[in-house]
């Protein structure tokens, strides 16, 4: 038998016929050195109904996708939230009207018999007080029928002081300067409000800075004052706002006074015979000139005699009340930057500098020749820690207590704590030779007495806010719980709704 191929030419071996295997098996690859036959089974297929791998430590329940709620309401308009925050409500029609509540007047502001009672603020005056921003949003005026304040010891002293300065007597034309301090809720801001209301009844001119913070937190525009002194800065908008407050609140007084001095800085804008109201309005209309206008207004208010040529329309100027709240913010570097990107000290703002200069008794020329009251209050809740101010107030208290500044008991700043020299200088001890210039005083408000507290709590009861019998024992308990009659705490206790079981 002849073999199927030729032995001589193995190279020409015809290709062997392919194994007849299913196509899937041919694809099976087997490693070359394995002698064992390949298992021609197909790989295990995943079963369809296989249970899913159990989940641990996570939710096993079926998740439902939540639909996002469609935003339907619109956000409040720009400025609406702020307006709501700053809104001042002075009346509550649900509160009871109190019979026999007296209004503050020139007669009863010195009446010691009214101590411990509530004096209402006269309704026509409310607009003036609103204009000088005497009310603060969180003060709780909105729970009573109409605003009123407690006559406490300090209020009566203030009344006597204001009465003495404005009426004929030895205190006429005196300048009193006070720093009002005290614990949180002790009534510092309301003390300022009482001073303003008394000043309005006595037809004084009231100039206020309701919040010192607003001038140093870089919320209003600022610019170097002039080319001559580029390191002093003026805030025109803030000054215009100040003029606006002053004009609105003192419109009656200012419109009765007319210009009596020459104001070269304002050039032709000032006409002779112009009222002070019109003068101040110049600054409101043109904020660029606001600072000059304010200075002119200040010159007019502190004038004692007319300049030559103005004698015809001159009337004596009324005393001036200057109040400011939250003093500590003016005692540190402001948020404004200079051209070198270094923070500007608050005392380099000309506005601040002007009001702080009032604290120092002027040696040769009286600060307020027509008399007046300068009341600056600190704050206990929104107050930056300024070491210089702390020491300065301590020194002030020591001086008031009769400690000689050269004695070792006189508090000295810790040399390692870097007290601000400029701050210390503001409150520095220097007595003026002028007889009407009072030295700087420190007035610390603390709690009210039990009798005053009783009057205050009765006010709540008679307004229908407090449904308890006001007895001496009950008042005494609240007086203790309020930290010794701190009036802000007493108010919280009085307005607390109690469910009588």
């Amino acid at each position, binding site marked *: 038998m002849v073999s199927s191929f030729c032995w001589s030419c193995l190279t020409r071996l015809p290709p062997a016929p392919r194994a007849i295997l299913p196509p899937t098996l041919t694809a099976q690859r087997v490693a070359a050195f394995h002698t064992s036959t390949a298992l021609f089974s197909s790989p295990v297929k995943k079963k369809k109904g296989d249970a899913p791998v159990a989940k641990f*430590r996570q939710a096993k329940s079926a998740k439902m996708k939540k639909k996002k709620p469609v935003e339907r309401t619109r956000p409040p308009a720009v400025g609406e939230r702020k307006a709501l925050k700053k809104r001042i409500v002075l009346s509550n029609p649900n509160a009871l009207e109190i019979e026999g509540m007296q209004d503050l007047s020139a007669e009863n502001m010195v009446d010691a018999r009214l101590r411990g009672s509530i004096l209402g603020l006269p309704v026509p005056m409310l607009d003036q007080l609103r204009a000088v921003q005497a009310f603060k949003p969180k003060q709780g005026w909105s729970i009573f029928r109409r605003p009123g304040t407690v006559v406490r010891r300090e209020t009566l002293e203030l009344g006597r002081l204001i009465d003495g300065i404005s009426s004929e007597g030895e205190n006429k034309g005196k300048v009193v300067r006070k720093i009002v301090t005290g614990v949180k809720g002790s009534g510092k801001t309301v003390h300022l409000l009482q001073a303003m209301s008394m000043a309005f009844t006595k037809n004084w001119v009231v100039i206020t800075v309701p919040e010192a913070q607003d001038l140093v937190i870089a919320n209003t525009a600022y610019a170097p004052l002039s080319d001559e002194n580029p390191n002093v800065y003026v805030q025109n908008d803030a000054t215009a706002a100040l003029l606006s407050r002053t004009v609105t609140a003192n419109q009656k007084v200012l419109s009765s006074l007319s210009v009596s001095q020459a104001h070269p800085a304002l050039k032709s804008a000032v006409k002779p015979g112009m009222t002070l109201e019109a003068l101040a309005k110049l600054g409101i209309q043109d904020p660029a000139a606001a600072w000059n206008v304010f200075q002119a207004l200040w010159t007019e208010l502190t004038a004692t005699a007319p300049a030559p040529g103005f004698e015809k329309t001159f009337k004596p100027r009324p005393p001036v009340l200057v109040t400011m709240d939250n003093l500590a913010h003016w005692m540190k570097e402001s948020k404004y930057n200079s051209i070198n990107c270094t923070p500007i000290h608050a005392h380099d703002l000309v506005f601040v500098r002007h009001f702080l200069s009032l604290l120092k008794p002027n040696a040769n020329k009286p600060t307020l020749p027509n008399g007046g009251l300068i009341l600056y209050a600190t704050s206990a809740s929104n107050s930056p820690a300024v070491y210089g101010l702390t020491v300065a107030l301590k020194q002030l208290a020591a001086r008031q207590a009769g400690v000689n500044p050269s004695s070792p008991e006189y508090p000295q700043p810790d040399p390692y704590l870097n007290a601000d020299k400029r701050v210390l200088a503001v409150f520095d001890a220097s007595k003026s030779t002028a007889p009407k210039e009072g030295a700087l005083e420190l007035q610390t408000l603390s709690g009210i007495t039990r009798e005053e507290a009783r009057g205050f709590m009765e006010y709540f009861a008679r307004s229908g806010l407090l449904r308890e019998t006001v007895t001496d024992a009950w008042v*005494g*308990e609240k007086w*203790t*719980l309020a*930290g*010794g009659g701190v009036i802000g705490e007493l108010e919280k206790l009085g307005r607390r709704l109690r469910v009588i079981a």
Partner: protein
Amino acid sequence: MAWQSPNGLVHAMHSIRRAAQLRPFLQRSVISASPISSPFTPTGLRQRMSARGFTTELQPVAAPEVDLAEFPVKPARIIPVSAAYFSGSPKFIDHLLRLEALLAKYASLPTVSPSDAPRMAWFKLLQFRDVVGEPVPTKKYKALLKLLQRLNRIDPTVAPEEVRSALGLFLRPGNPFGVKPAPATVDDKGRARGKGKRKASSAVVHLVEGEGEVLVNGKTLNEVFPRLHDRESAVWALRCTSRLDKYNVWATVQGGGVTGQAEAITLAVARALLVHEPALKPILRKAGVITVDARRVERKKPGHVKSRKMPTWVKR
């Protein structure tokens, strides 16, 4: 069994001999309670005593004739003193029976209320076990204590000496309740001092007569405690006795949190107030300002996340 080994046999013989020698001694000691002690000793015994040590000389001697008439006065076997000898705790039961008998005897005597009875420091259970030398169960000791307390309630003016001496046996030595600290007094400046603790805070209060001013660490009440509840609880002792406007409080408090400090002051004020007016104690107790809350934060344990919390269980 000892009898099965030869060694044991010897041992048994020795023990018999020893017992025989000891018999008169035992008779005297154990039957001492019997009315007739026997001076009579059999002659045979004496002979044997002289012949001690020589087992070979031991001769059987017939026991004396049993005289049944003598039996009640001189029992044939050893009789324990206590009837409770076989109860396991005879001394304890004797005490118990004696007290029960006393109580039965004097049950008709007038008693006073437990608070007026003289305070007695009875033995603690462990001490009592040591004293009687028997394992006294807790429950039975409690029953004994009840008996003691009942006997102690007999009006001290009429209590018989017998009862008093019986109770004296159960007192701890040293009279622990006899040593009392001197009662606190108001000092020469009119200050009463009180200390109080709560949680991690401790307070010292000086209470003087005044007008209701409160200073805590030199600060006013509302500066230290912003929360009204804490202010109220700090002066609660004065408030509930309506003494709030009659005293001034000067408190020093440290440690812990706000609530703990307030409640430490509560306790301290109450204690200081008791120095001024001890008669207020029932009112203050009702107001809950005298009771000390001794709870403290429980310590953290190893293996726990906090004091009790265990780590989360994790599979593998």
